[in-house]
């Protein structure tokens, strides 16, 4: 399988503070890769830089092309999509309009399959269909997460980057969200997943990175990571869940 995303030597600074330091990371086409790490490690910063929302040094190549200087809007139309930590929904627009805007670049290309994708998103999240006329700002926290994910899916991403999709969700919904993520891989979408919930992330992912203070500390296939004593101790808690993923 070829590399869809290949990042080398990526550095991101806020003023003089370096938040991401010489990160190298890659995502194979059709795989799920997770980045875990403590608060303030630079995970959100990393994803924002990959989306082009922050200025970064180093090289980012996507689908075989260097995109380091490509603007975020162009990246979206090439199939890169970010669900940011703050979701950034259009609060005073309806759920449906938020989804419509998710497909903005496809409307520009006169894509005919948009209507079918609406059906699919509504099927995935029936709650959104019930509330399609409601303003996004009035949704519950969980519904907002669904809308953020739905809006991202409407862009038909090739590489979907998710920043803590389970943030603040009840365990049952977390399970649903991870099921959706695993299902997406089946349809050929590659996923870069940032999570606090390391156990669930390593279960669903093929490969993982541990980011600590802006640098990659450990990496490896997720089964190996899940049994790595350093990961077990810091991120999975004392009761290791290393038997849950056997691949």
């Amino acid at each position, binding site marked *: 399988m070829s590399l869809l995303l290949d990042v080398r030597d990526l550095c991101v600074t806020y003023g003089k503070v370096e938040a991401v330091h010489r990160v190298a990371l890659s995502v194979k086409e059709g795989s799920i890769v997770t980045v875990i790490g403590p608060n303030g490690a630079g995970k959100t910063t990393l994803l924002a830089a990959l989306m082009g929302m922050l200025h970064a040094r180093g090289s980012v190549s996507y689908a075989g092309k260097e995109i380091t200087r490509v603007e975020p809007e162009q990246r*979206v*139309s090439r199939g890169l999509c970010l669900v940011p930590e703050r979701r950034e929904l*259009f609060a005073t*627009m309806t759920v449906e309009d938020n989804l*419509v*805007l998710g497909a*903005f*670049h496809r409307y520009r290309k006169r894509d005919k399959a948009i209507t079918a994708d609406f059906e699919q998103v509504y099927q995935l999240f029936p709650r959104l269909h019930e509330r399609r006329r409601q303003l996004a700002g009035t949704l519950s926290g969980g519904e907002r997460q669904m809308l953020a994910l739905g809006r991202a899916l409407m862009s038909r991403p090739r590489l979907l980057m998710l920043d803590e999709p389970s943030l603040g969700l009840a365990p049952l919904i977390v399970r649903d969200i991870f099921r959706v993520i695993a299902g997406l891989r089946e349809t050929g979408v590659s996923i870069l997943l940032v999570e606090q919930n390391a156990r669930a992330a390593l279960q669903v992912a093929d490969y993982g990175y541990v980011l600590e203070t802006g640098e990659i500390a450990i990496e490896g296939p997720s089964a190996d990571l899940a049994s790595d004593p350093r990961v077990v101790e810091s991120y999975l808690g004392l009761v290791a869940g290393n038997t849950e993923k056997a691949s």
Partner: protein
Amino acid sequence: MNAQIAIFLVQDGLTNGAIYALLALALVLVFAVTRVIFIPQGEFVTYGALTLASLQLGKLPGTAWLLLAAGIAVTAVELAQALRLGAAERIPGILFKYVIFPAAVMGLAWWAAPLKLALTLQVLLTLIVVVPLGPMVYRLAYQPLANASVLVLLIISVAVHFAMTGLGLVFFGAEGSRTPAFSDAHWNLGVLTVSGQSLWVMGTSLALIVGLFLFFEHTIYGKALRATAINRVGARLVGVSPAMAGKLSFTLAALIGALSGILIAPITTIYYDSGFLVGLKGFVGAIVGGLVSYPIAAAGALLVGLLEAYASFWASAYKEVIVFTLIIPVLIWRSFTTHHIEDEEE
């Protein structure tokens, strides 16, 4: 003052108020999407009126030259950017939009001006010449500093306003122009005499307002503009670039400005610098709406029109003073009734 005069003043006030309402809507739109307080809106009014006046005299309007010059300036800026980003594939598009298109418009105007075409065709040609200046002004003056503070953007607006007024003097001279009415019809309805001209103005304004509403509610680009106004980061993440949104909102503002100029030109004599005052009255309306509410801005602008009509009847020397003094009680009232909404997150 008898009933007949009172009714006449209402008609007069609503006619002007309809134009101010259009301008107020454009100002709210531009501010919501780009945070620019669009003072040069008035210059588009002037350009629209004077371009049409030139065409009616069978002369090539100076704005055609201006379009060509602005196009070349934008070409230079865009080419420099394309080279810096190594995006050579953009070059044909740039040349088409900013060199070939303005040149074609110039050629068209050159050919059409002496023919003294029908009024509707002249209006159309006026719009083709003036409206593309809107996005070009955005590209040249605002886009390079799009992330600056509202104050910096306001200072740019003042500069653009003076530059465009100056160019208006260069291209149109100091004499004023007045275009013939669209319609000389009059209807007597009891005490009320309705003029065809004011029906034209109100009808066109209403049609444009409905059109804008439909655009924002039902088209993908209208939604994209609203999205940018609501959440800039979110808009970028779905692929709506701020530059595209800025150019689109300036295009709409230029269209509204030029059309307002065309509508007002048969009512008032327009000089190279008259647009400013017209725009300012739209601005008072927009301020009544706090620069955020479209309906309140439109209502405020209608109020300005009515106030102006009555002021010019009772104290015509002071009519501008009276109209602009209105802004003070309105601002006081608004400062009591509105609370500042901080940027909502999540």
